């Protein structure tokens, strides 16, 4: 009897089968006690086979289906299960060949021909062919599958039209198998970041037969044919995902760890406790560091802070008075002391932002936005019709309750606006979904916002503020901006493209200022570099699991007494190491 305790079964039995008795309505409580006691003692003694590497991965994945998933934690797992044309270089997350061995690009930059390796097979033994790509990509684009990230394939010829249902014939979409090992991809424009997209999780290949046979639950029915370095050994919701090395992956020889456990965890204190007691080897979600302990933890050699491709910013609702006036928006932006926010509140190595696009993005240097200049701000506010803030209506700053940080920043901003401009801001805190709905329906004056880049190119930040983009959510619609971004993305010449994007961004963060960037994110991962090798912090925070391993990996025991790593000192007072909730 397993009595509901963790038990990872053999793959033939199913991903997550669990044998356990139901609650027995015994006639007498004493009976019940006896039964429970016996079961508990019998069920608790299952030793759990060890993993070579245990990683705390963040929130429980909503899905591991590349066409469905939207979360970062989800993507990190799916990227190991499903391969694409290219994959992330472990050292800098730039695209390198994966299933495609090489590719040609035409001079106009619009047609890629990918040459697949000839020795590719699924983990279940069937050959991988170019048709798998056609199937997987069309599956993302097919409207009836409602893939939220279908936009990643709108760069294909007729991709968007097929998704919108204007074109019914999938053969008109710009992806075609010339033969088993050759894939032809036709794009609308030369797309500088197309290889980055090929690396992205949405464009990974999925097993057609399993999906057609098993429908939405295809990932729950073993064996799941996988194309990546790992296969799914077990998936128990909110408990753990176990990956097992896929011996049929073309580069299996370089997959370093056999069995990897990924633990879902959203409590920073629990994550830290698990790490400190040696249960977890790596913690790599930026939300899994207790903010209260940041000062202490950042000084430790096993805490690694790095520049991350994300920006925290404020949206203005430009459809509401007086925020339709760029001068008013600029005035509010100019009195924000961003340095103070990163030094006093976030404290995790973030950098005050001037531009929206982080400066460490590939092949682009973002323009300077608005700095800290209260004098100029007061002048602009007066020009906007509110000398010394007189007559300025009190307004609302919208933030959500997912983190205390947002409120702390809101209070700081509220104070800056009051002190420098004499304006009165109210903080409106909403629970996450309510906040999203309010922001989406433009039911706010100012709203805290953030954005994480999907791929290493400025387009992932800049295209969202085009007029028709669903992520704009400011009501700001500027024909000049739309034209600049569109023009830029049609350029073959990288420098010319970068120049056009810069001009667009100047509109966004300086001249029109529908948003105010506050800071660029810093990522934080923790692991002991003496024990864990193969992780290289990078701006996308993409650390392929296939290259990570533990030095002198020893079998893990389930008994915590033998796990208690006395060797590793707790570096601070015990009082700080408690859980929340």
């Amino acid at each position: 009897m397993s009595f509901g305790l963790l038990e990872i079964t053999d793959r033939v039995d199913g991903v997550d089968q669990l044998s356990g008795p139901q609650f027995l309505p015994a006639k007498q409580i004493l009976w019940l006690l006896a039964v429970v006691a016996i079961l508990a003692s019998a069920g608790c003694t299952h030793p759990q086979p060890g993993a070579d590497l245990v990683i705390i991965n963040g929130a429980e994945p909503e899905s591991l289906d590349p066409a469905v998933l939207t979360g970062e934690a989800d993507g990190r797992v799916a990227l190991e299960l499903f391969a694409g044309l290219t994959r992330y270089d472990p050292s800098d997350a730039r695209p390198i060949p994966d299933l495609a061995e090489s590719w040609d690009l035409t001079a106009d930059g619009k047609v890629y021909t990918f040459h697949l390796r000839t020795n590719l097979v699924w983990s279940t033994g069937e050959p991988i062919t170019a048709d798998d790509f056609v199937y997987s990509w069309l599956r993302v684009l097919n409207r009836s599958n409602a893939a939220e990230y279908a936009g990643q394939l709108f760069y294909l010829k007729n991709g968007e039209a097929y998704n919108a249902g204007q074109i019914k014939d999938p053969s008109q979409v710009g992806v075609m198998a010339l033969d088993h090992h050759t894939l032809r991809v036709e794009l609308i424009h030369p797309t500088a970041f197309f290889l980055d997209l090929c690396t992205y999780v949405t464009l990974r290949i999925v097993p057609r037969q399993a999906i057609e046979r098993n429908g939405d639950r295809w990932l729950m029915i073993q064996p799941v044919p996988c194309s990546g370095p790992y296969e799914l050994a077990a998936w128990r919701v909110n408990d753990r995902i176990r990956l097992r090395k896929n011996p049929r992956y073309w580069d299996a020889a370089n997959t370093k760890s056999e069995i990897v456990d990924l633990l879902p965890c959203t409590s920073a204190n629990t994550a830290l406790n698990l790490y400190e007691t040696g249960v977890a080897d790596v913690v790599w979600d930026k939300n899994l560091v207790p903010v209260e302990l940041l000062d202490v933890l950042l000084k430790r050699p096993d805490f690694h802070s790095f520049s991350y491709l994300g920006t925290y910013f404020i949206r203005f609702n430009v459809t509401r008075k007086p925020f339709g006036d760029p001068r008013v928006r600029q005035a509010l932006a100019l009195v924000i002391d961003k340095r103070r926010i990163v030094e006093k509140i976030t404290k995790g190595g973030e950098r005050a932002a001037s531009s929206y696009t982080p400066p460490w993005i590939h092949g682009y240097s973002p323009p300077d936005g608005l700095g800290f200049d209260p004098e100029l701000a007061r002048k602009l506010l007066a020009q906007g019709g509110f000398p010394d803030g007189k007559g300025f209506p009190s307004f609302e700053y919208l933030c959500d309750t997912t983190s205390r940080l947002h409120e702390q920043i809101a209070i700081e901003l509220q104070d800056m606006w009051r002190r420098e401009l004499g304006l009165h801001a109210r903080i409106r805190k909403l629970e996450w979904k309510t906040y999203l709905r309010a922001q989406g329906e433009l039911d706010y004056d100012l709203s805290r916002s953030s954005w994480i880049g999907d791929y290493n190119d400025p387009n992932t930040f800049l295209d969202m503020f085009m007029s028709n983009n669903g992520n704009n959510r400011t009501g700001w619609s500027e024909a000049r901006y739309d034209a600049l971004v569109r023009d830029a993305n049609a350029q073959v010449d990288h420098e010319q493209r970068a120049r056009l994007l810069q001009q667009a961004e100047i509109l966004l963060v300086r001249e029109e200022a529908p948003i105010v960037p506050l800071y660029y994110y810093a990522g934080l991962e923790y692991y002991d570099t003496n024990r864990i090798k193969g992780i290289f912090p990078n701006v996308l925070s993409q650390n392929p699991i296939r290259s990570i391993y533990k030095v002198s990996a020893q079998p893990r025991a389930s008994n915590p007494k033998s796990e208690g790593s006395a060797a590793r000192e707790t570096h601070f007072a015990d009082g700080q190491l408690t859980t929340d909730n």
Partner: protein
Amino acid sequence: MFYSLKRLAFTIPLMLLISFLAFELLHVAPGGPFDKERAPASPEIKRVLEAKFHLNESIGKQYLRYLGLLWEKTPDGKWRRVDGGLIAGDFGPSMKYRNHTVNDIISQGLPVSMALGALAFCFAVGLGIPLGVFAAIRKGDWQDYAVSLLALLAICIPALVIGPMLIMHFAIQWRWFPVALWGSVWHAVLPTLTLGLYFAGKISRLMREGMLTTLHAEFITTARAKGLSETAVMLKHALRLAVLPVVSYSGPLLADLLTGSFVVENIFQIPGIGVFLVNGTLNRDYTMVVGLVVLYALLLLGLNLVVDLAYSLLDPRVRYE
């Protein structure tokens, strides 16, 4: 027997009411399961997604579909019941965890929550009853006061405080038990203590009162008078009646164990179902929340019935017809 059937029949309208309220209330809350920080590639995609889960239908129709009481016209003009639904034991797909059905999640999480609840129950009863009896026998002594004080502390300090304190000392300072997770007998110790202490305290109080009342009853005097040993008087006669307040408290106790396990599952990162009820509400995972509410309601009704039946077995004065 008839009594049990009557009670069971009563659950059906009650379940309908509970599920209807849960369904309506959740839909009234602003935001939906597919409102995310990133908008889908086009508004059309979101519409298709919502249509996939029938969120575009009227609430009444959705509710009937959820129950499995919806008939739709097939192309050949016949009316056919839409498959699945609560009456078929199908809680539907989760709107948040898209590869899982709510049934998948319940079948994974419920045994874990049940195990935790059962262990805490055993702990509470196993500690509470002897302590209560002991305190009653030593009434007025310092032992009585000590037990009462401990019981009071256990009742007053919430799991939110006890859990982290236990973790701090037993898991981090002394490394006797794991800090979190679930999987071996070691993992179950701290959560069981955290969840069970409160109930152990309550039970020991109830037991002490029950024992004191019973010890003054005439049949105890009779038992002593006919020369039974003190142990036999206590165990064979007094205990059986004195435990009744504890048995009648078991109903609410089991209910509290279930709800209490939300907190404890969170503190110890235990893969039970309590976490899903809380997060499901935040995620607007409609099917998940309504499914779990229905499940909890069923469990509570069932457990209460068991408790009532147990009562009749222990107390000869109580008989259900």
